[in-house]
């Protein structure tokens, strides 16, 4: 598994995650990005919410 500097934990898939309330969620993806910042709207999966925010950002799509 890989710990990224300021982002998710990367695990080889498939992965089964048990959430605090006992729910089990599964991802079959070849690599799974687990949220570590707890800001993800699709927790426990990363949705890039950990990204730095700035007043002058550009995005392309």
């Amino acid at each position, binding site marked *: 598994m890989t710990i990224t500097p300021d982002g998710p934990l990367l695990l080889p898939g498939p992965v089964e995650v048990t959430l605090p309330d006992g729910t089990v969620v599964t991802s079959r993806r070849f690599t799974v990005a687990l949220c570590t910042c707890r800001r993800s709207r699709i927790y426990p999966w990363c949705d890039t919410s950990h990204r730095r*925010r700035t007043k002058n950002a550009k995005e392309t799509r």
Partner: protein
Amino acid sequence: MTGPALPQPRGELSAAVIAALTSGDTALDSTLPPTVDPYGDDLQLALYVLYELHYRGFTGVPDELEWDPGLLAVRRSLERPFLAALRRDVPPGTSADEALDALLVEPVGHDDSSVSHHLQRDGELWQLTEYAALRSLYHLKEADPHAWVIPRLRGRAKAGMVAVEFDEFGAGRPEEIHARLYADLMTDLGLDTTYGHYLDRAPAVALATVNLMSLFGLHRALRGALVGHFATVEVTSSPGSRRMAAALRRTGAGKAAQRFYDEHVEADAVHEQVVRRDVVGGLLADEPHLEADIAFGVHATGLLEDRFGAHVLKAWQQQHSALRTLPHGGTERKSP
């Protein structure tokens, strides 16, 4: 498999190319007029049509014309000014990491220059439908142009690229190929899902975004730029897709429409990591001299996406369609 119909020409260059494909007489003069606009409708359509021979071709055009020397010479003469304009117009001298790091920040609040920000907050259903029609030129062949780079990579870069492409192509499940998910989205929006259907309606700014991928994908010499393009798409996709999913939910576009972007929020958060670490990192370790090309690919993608976004937002601000009006199209409506 039959291809789409040939489009209507938009000037002398595209008329000559389309006529050659129709007649089979491909002995064309590949000298361009010096005043040709590298980003203009005529050149971009001529190039788009020639590139399409490498994907699915056109109905009534023999498959063998893909490798016709006369047409390849014309294609080269069209690519040169396009590539020269891109090299002229991108910011010089940044590293691949600097170019990508600039994309890894998100704006605080609303970004007036972003189509997905506009659609999330204020977008109307007809605007989402237009956006989907214009983007269909790429998304109905999503990840296809990037597959061309695979034989040109090795080791870590190749393994990472193939893993991401496997995901794009449904990870072994045809119903989950991203191009198929996009067709489902189009159906939800009442659009025609026939491959190439909206070509005549797509302005040059939209064609250029797809031509860029074909240009980078078809030239081994531009493999660094192709990887830069792919990284840009994957890095910017996840937050943009979240806004698109929100826009489609707010306007009640339908479940399949939301599904396409929901899938991209999660998938591309993974793809971004793999592409930056393994594909870009692996290629830089393997071929460090490609650094400037990777950065060029990132910047060229940003440049053309910004032009596309500016066109679409300007049209909508004036309550106009962002699509081309067909010269012989009969009655035109605001939505496609």
